[in-house]
């Protein structure tokens, strides 16, 4: 559906492809490299067609060598290019953590500000499609813990395009963490290039007496929970941080000052997850406004199981979120 302003309703995956296409068109220093991103168009299909349009100099397949791929990004960015590199599954960052943590993240600081690393790393997180323990994780808190990296996690088609464009335009290393279960989610996306500014949360649903902070694939679950809770008379505000590092503490704090209760939801394992950091910041900045302990919903402390029966228990959903909100509200009650 096209509108007069050039906004259409397209899937998340198409928004990603469109962003990549526009970025490649815009700047000859941008290139796209990763495992099977060219000939095959990525195993998720989000780079399909780009090789044909831009040719093998700018869109190319790499060997299965994650550390080399990140090295390619670091070295070429340090020499003036603007690489977009793809790490197929987020789980694979275990293969390249040195280049990420010790090189990419620190080079600018270690060199006294003389290096600039405009490199974007796209990767795919998330469980729920029976890919088991090594192809399903959400490891964003690893990255958020490392000074020098920026991390975004788009939860809508609009943000997928806008955050990806902002990430590539940024002169710092930025991780763009997509979610494989969101690729088909439809959303309104403008045709033209636009940026969703890094470090700005979005109030996905305005509310007055409870705050849910939900990242990535947990956003639609939180929205569904909010609908359920609304019928019970609870007016829930849902915030999508969009950027996890740097984190928009202000938007979340302002919301909690208004609602006095909060729950943080992410798909990653709860222990040591980003929710712990957000909860800690809230109690530091808004302790006097809180009427109840801050809740956290995340995956249990186990690897992601394969069996659909177990995986269903593993991944947080609207029902769990609803139950946790009700528990907190009851406690506050």
């Amino acid at each position: 559906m096209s509108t007069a302003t050039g906004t259409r309703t397209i899937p998340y995956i198409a928004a990603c492809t469109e962003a990549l296409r526009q970025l490649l068109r815009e700047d000859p220093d941008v290139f796209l490299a990763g495992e099977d991103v060219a000939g095959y168009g990525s195993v998720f299909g989000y780079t399909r067609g780009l090789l044909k349009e831009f040719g093998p100099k700018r869109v190319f397949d790499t060997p299965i060598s994650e550390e080399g791929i990140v090295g390619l990004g670091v070295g070429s960015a340090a020499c003036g290019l603007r690489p977009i590199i793809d790490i197929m599954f987020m789980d694979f960052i275990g293969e390249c953590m040195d280049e990420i943590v010790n090189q990419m993240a620190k080079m600018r600081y270690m060199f006294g500000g003389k290096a600039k690393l405009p490199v974007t790393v796209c990767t795919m997180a998330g469980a729920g499609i029976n890919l088991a323990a090594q192809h399903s994780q959400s490891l964003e808190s690893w990255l958020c813990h490392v000074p020098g990296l920026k991390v975004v996690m788009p939860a809508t088609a609009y943000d997928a395009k806008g955050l990806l464009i902002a990430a590539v335009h940024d002169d710092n290393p930025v991780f763009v963490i997509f979610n494989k279960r969101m690729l088909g989610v439809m959303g309104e996306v403008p045709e033209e290039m636009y940026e969703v500014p890094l470090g700005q949360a979005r109030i996905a649903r305005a509310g007055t007496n409870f705050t849910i902070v939900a990242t990535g694939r947990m956003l639609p679950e939180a929205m569904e929970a909010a609908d359920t809770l609304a019928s019970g008379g609870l007016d829930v505000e849902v915030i999508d941080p969009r950027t996890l590092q740097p984190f928009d503490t202000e938007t979340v704090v302002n919301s909690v000052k208004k609602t006095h209760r909060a729950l943080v939801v992410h798909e990653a394992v709860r222990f040591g997850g980003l929710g712990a950091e957000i909860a800690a910041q809230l109690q530091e900045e808004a302790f006097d406004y809180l009427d109840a302990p801050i809740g956290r919903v995340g995956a249990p402390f186990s690897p992601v199981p394969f069996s659909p029966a177990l995986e269903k228990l593993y991944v947080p959903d609207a029902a769990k979120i609803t139950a946790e909100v009700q528990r907190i509200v009851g406690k506050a009650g």
Partner: protein
Amino acid sequence: MDIPKAKLLDLHERMVRIRVFEEEAGKLMESARIPGALHLYVGEEAVASGVMCNLTDEDQITSTHRGHGHLVAKGGDFKKMYAELFGRATGYCNGKGGSMHISDMDLGMLGANGIVSAGPPIAMGAAFADKYKENGSVAVAFFGDGASNEGAFHEAANMAATWKLPLILLCENNGYGEFTPQARHQAVKDVADRAIGYGMPGAVVDGMDAIAVYEAAGEAIARARRGEGPTLLECKTYRFYDHVGIRGMGVSYRTDDEVLEWRKRDPIQLLEQRLTEAGVATTAELAAVHERTRAEALDAIKFAEESPFPEPDELLRDVYYVKA
């Protein structure tokens, strides 16, 4: 090969600059005038100098934890280097990198590196950028025999060969991975043998002979500039000092005889002997290079020691690039 006299003297001067810089740096460390630990390049001067005489500021290198020599040979400024070792604001990295992260992006020196074998993937990326921009530049990754056992080296070598990148994988084989002798850390003695497995040429060169390194590196670099792809060049060399500092931690892991045998082939003495015999320079002319370099080093140390420490606000500066 016809090597112009100016190039021979340049080669010599770079080696002397490394030697003098490192001797003075070693003294600073062992007298605790500077913080932290240093990995000194003494003994390996022919390698960095022989390679760098073939490069320009537009060519990139990645270095190692033993990185001062590479920066000196690439044209590094003594004052900024010593100031960095002292952790001062006037240092190359504003005092925030130190010995193991010393770098000069303007000279194409993409950093010493505290992580063994982290350099080859970065140099591979730099070589990719050179090829992408068609600028005729090359990248050189310096690494050791120990680093050649890391997966990062393997990934970088394979990618460079697959894509025919203008990369030189320059192995400084000094016979030890930290304190472990080569025979106990790899089954091949010539790291260059591994080139076959990557589909690139590999060659071994005497790393104590500056002219041999200069010639061999020159050929590999010229090949890369012609677009013919990467080369694995292995220089057999030796560190005259310990892994860390001059005397190290006093733990014996190699024999005095071995050290003495290698010291007989001091690369600077070897070159000076050749230059004087060939009538390229007189002993007095060569000695003058040592003297003026020593004076420059002492002057730079004075500058460094008198320089201020970084201000507290430097702590959080440059974690990220911020648009002005």
